[in-house]
């Protein structure tokens, strides 16, 4: 589903990603962990070209994002993204948030978009909030709407950038529940997270990033119980 080859990314002369190589298979759930500033968000944002790639290749669903001929808007319809700050559209109701892209990009009818939207809101447990505005919802509810909004495009792949970091602790669970459900249904997911419990339980593979490279990658059992790199050990000691 994703192949990343020697990905480099610089902001000016600050090289943030220093040669990333990795593969994500279909239906795989990959969690990315690592210290702040290690480049996790930047890496994730390169996967749907929210950041342009300095060098290297990123191949998503068979399309090389570096190719000038690749239609980036088309790729993005296949790749859902969930942000730390939710980024819901505050001027639109919950159901309008979910309906917008299917309507304008996929050009489906209002009725079909509404039906699909209502089904997705039900799935994330927010059917009764359809006509409210984002500002009227709790953080956890907003993030679940954001997930429904991304799913409305029927993506093949979902990217999550610390989806629970902006939430009060008691609201984290409801969002993780929705994500677990998605994983169970076979969604391919790349999740940047500080929720080690989630990574351990749901991930097929965990990538530990540090200073712009993937230091270590392995199954969660091995990463969390028997990491090879000193840096991984230090990091886990601090966060666990």
């Amino acid at each position: 589903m994703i192949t990343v080859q020697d990905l480099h990314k610089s902001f000016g002369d600050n090289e943030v990603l220093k040669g990333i190589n990795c593969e994500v298979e279909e239906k795989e759930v990959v969690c990315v962990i690592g210290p702040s500033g290690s480049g996790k968000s930047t890496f994730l944002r390169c996967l749907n070209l929210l950041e342009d790639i300095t060098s290297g290749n990123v191949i998503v669903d068979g399309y090389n994002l570096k190719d000038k001929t690749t239609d980036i808007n088309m790729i993005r319809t296949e790749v859902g993204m969930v942000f730390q700050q939710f980024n819901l559209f505050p001027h639109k109701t919950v159901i309008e948030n979910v309906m917008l892209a299917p309507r304008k990009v996929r050009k489906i009818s209002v009725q079909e978009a509404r039906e699909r939207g209502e089904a997705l809101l039900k799935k994330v447990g927010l059917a009764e909030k359809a006509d409210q505005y984002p500002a009227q919802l709790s953080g956890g509810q907003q993030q679940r709407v954001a997930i429904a909004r991304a799913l409305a495009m029927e993506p093949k792949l979902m990217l999550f950038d610390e989806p629970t970091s902006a939430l009060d602790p008691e609201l984290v669970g409801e969002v993780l529940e929705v994500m677990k459900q998605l994983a169970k249904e076979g969604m391919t997911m790349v999740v940047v997270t500080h929720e080690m419990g989630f990574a351990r339980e749901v991930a097929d593979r965990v990538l530990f990033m540090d200073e712009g490279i993937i230091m270590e990658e392995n199954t969660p059992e091995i990463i969390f119980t028997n990491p090879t790199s000193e840096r991984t050990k230090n990091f886990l000691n601090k966060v666990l």
Partner: protein
Amino acid sequence: MFDFGQVIDFLPQLGKGLYYTLLISIVGLLIGFILGAIFGLGRISKNKFFFIIASIYVEVIRGTPVLVQAIWLYFALPIILQFQMASITAGIVVIAINSGAYIAEIVRGSVDSINKGQMEAGRSLGLNKHQAMRYIIWPQAFKRMIPPLGNQFIISIKDTSLLSVILVPELMFQGRYIASNHFNAVEIYTTVALFYLVINFSLSLLLRYIERRLNY
């Protein structure tokens, strides 16, 4: 001592002034709004040429007083161009060009003030840049523009009083004419001030109403 009763005799003439004040304000601000939208887009454009043109326009207008702009346009430009504009036309042009520059800044500021996560969320859903601007950024930016736009409208309406120096027959011009011929400065200028106050206060109320209607 003061005879406000006599003001009634001058109401037709003040009314004529009011007519020109409103005419110049409305037409000037309409054109100013269009200029502001165009040059505001210039100020957020990635096109260097368009950006530079828009920036020069905004800086030149913001950096000079309206009074100087009016006098320059009416008394200096004709010497350069060998062509004299009618004073009312010149008045409309001054208000349009002047408000346009400030409105351009209002447009730019409002668009800039929308969190960049909004654009990213739209783009990540597959909307192209144009669609994201149209459905996500503009509706939010437009709402933020309303208070500063209202402010600018009020400032521009008051600025029309400066056009009396280029002989535009607006409210202030009529007031000065009457007061200097009839030695009733207190009565006339008080009335003139009240006229401006009523126009601007009504506008304030209207804007407050619109803002409330747009609340989400």
